[in-house]
């Protein structure tokens, strides 16, 4: 089964997936999600031209939590009965923080503020894929996992 991205143009797939942002060609400010409209949001920039740019695949966890109750629609649960999942906000070297669900099999106990996380693509539900954050296990800690 080939999965389709749950939203078009926000992330690449393949062995090294990445988020796709927009970079203003005038002031170099980077945006994610990619800008739908053509105006730079830097108040000192009147740029209207953007190029697609892949964001760094690794960043530092800004914070994290989980959803122990099934969120309301338009969220679509991946399983019945509902299984809780974790969420993380990750600060990227591009100077922005991006929310995502946490990779399958990891929970809040596997996360801490400041720890490293890496982008992966997994199934959101049915045949739709989504980006997720997977904690990077540091060398020497693997034995504890």
């Amino acid at each position, binding site marked *: 089964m080939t999965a389709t991205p749950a939203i078009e143009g926000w992330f690449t797939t393949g062995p090294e997936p990445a988020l796709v942002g927009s970079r203003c060609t005038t002031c170099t*400010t980077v945006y994610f999600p990619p800008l739908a409209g053509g105006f730079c949001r830097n108040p000192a920039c009147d740029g209207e031209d953007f190029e697609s740019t892949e964001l760094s695949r690794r960043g530092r966890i800004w914070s994290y*939590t989980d959803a*122990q109750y099934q969120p309301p*629609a338009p969220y679509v649960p991946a399983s019945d009965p509902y299984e809780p999942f974790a969420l993380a906000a990750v600060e990227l070297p591009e*100077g*922005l923080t991006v929310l995502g669900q946490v990779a399958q099999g990891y929970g809040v106990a596997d996360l801490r503020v400041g720890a490293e996380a890496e982008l992966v693509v997994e199934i959101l539900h049915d045949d739709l894929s989504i980006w997720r954050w997977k904690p990077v296990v540091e060398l020497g800690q693997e034995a504890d996992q």
Partner: protein
Amino acid sequence: MSHDVAVLGVGMHPWGKWGKNFVTYGVHAARAALADAGVAWTDVDLVVGGETVRNGYGGYVAGATFAQALGWNGARVATSYAACATGAQALDTARARILAGLCEVALVVGADTTPKGFLAPNAGERWDDPDWLRFRLLGMTNPAYFALYARRRMDLYGATQEDFAQVKVKNARHGLENPYARYRKAVSVEDVMSSAVVSDPLHLLDICATSDGAAAVVLASTEYAKRLGLASPVRVSAVSTVTPTFPNTVMDMPNLSTDSSAAVGEPEHTFKESIARAAYEEAGIEPADVGVAEVYDLSTALELDWIEDLGLSGRGEAEQLLRAGETTIGGRIPVNPSGGLACFGEAVPAQALAQVCELTWQLRGQATGRQVEGATVGITANQGLFGHGSSVILSV
């Protein structure tokens, strides 16, 4: 020229789940505020309504809806929407017209009837709306955002879930004697800790409910107040409704990401800090002058964030204030003497006005059973979706 306007009267409808139309609550609060002011409805020359987005067309034009329900009197009308800051923005609209000499006495009303459970986005497929996408792509609820902020306090400053529970315990105690509060029951740390975890680290009792409720304020010029024989009324000294400064690098509901600071460095102050700083600057006072605060405790942990954002303690020090009892009534800087959202639950367009009602009663010495002694300056704070937030400073 002074930028102060006088608070002539305040009124509320008790918060709860009463199952009535929002107009019923709004008119009840409006009549209470007019009676408190000793002003006849027919003397009001501006009515400003806080819009509710969950009650159909009448909610979209709330100012006119309240005016009609009170009986058309020919007053000018306005309706404001600014998410959680709706009431403060409505107040600011009234203040501006009074200060411009375009109006003498204004009635500001906010009221809501809310659904049960998580606040979910409006129906329909909206792939360009972050408030829809956060549910569709991530399952990111409001409590999940509150939990992100709470977790940072734990990992960065050593806060504990017991600290968060103590905020609830304090606010529940504050609200016991408040006739307008929905929840008037003592809560223990064990009650909070044994309630279900909604979004780690927050328990059900750390998170505020949604409620029906209404609040109203009658504002006038200080000259008008004098003519009514009020020599030293409670005054509105500042209403801050500033927007964020780019790049806004703190994750905000309902966004999926922050701005990037790569090309333009981070601003000196976060959005929430800047809301308070603008209020202090407008009032010409310092955080040390504040004697009482009403802040938006959507979660218990968020109250601790606000204490720091308002400059009432240093960054990472709010837990110390809490543990020392400084934020309870009788302490150095009582926070949420009304009981806060913990005791009220959120009624969006009414909530920022309810904060103003409480501080008015506090500064007049009329907050029976929850009175903060000796306060002459009070500050409110809240933040809503899409770059809206507010802080109001009242003084006497």
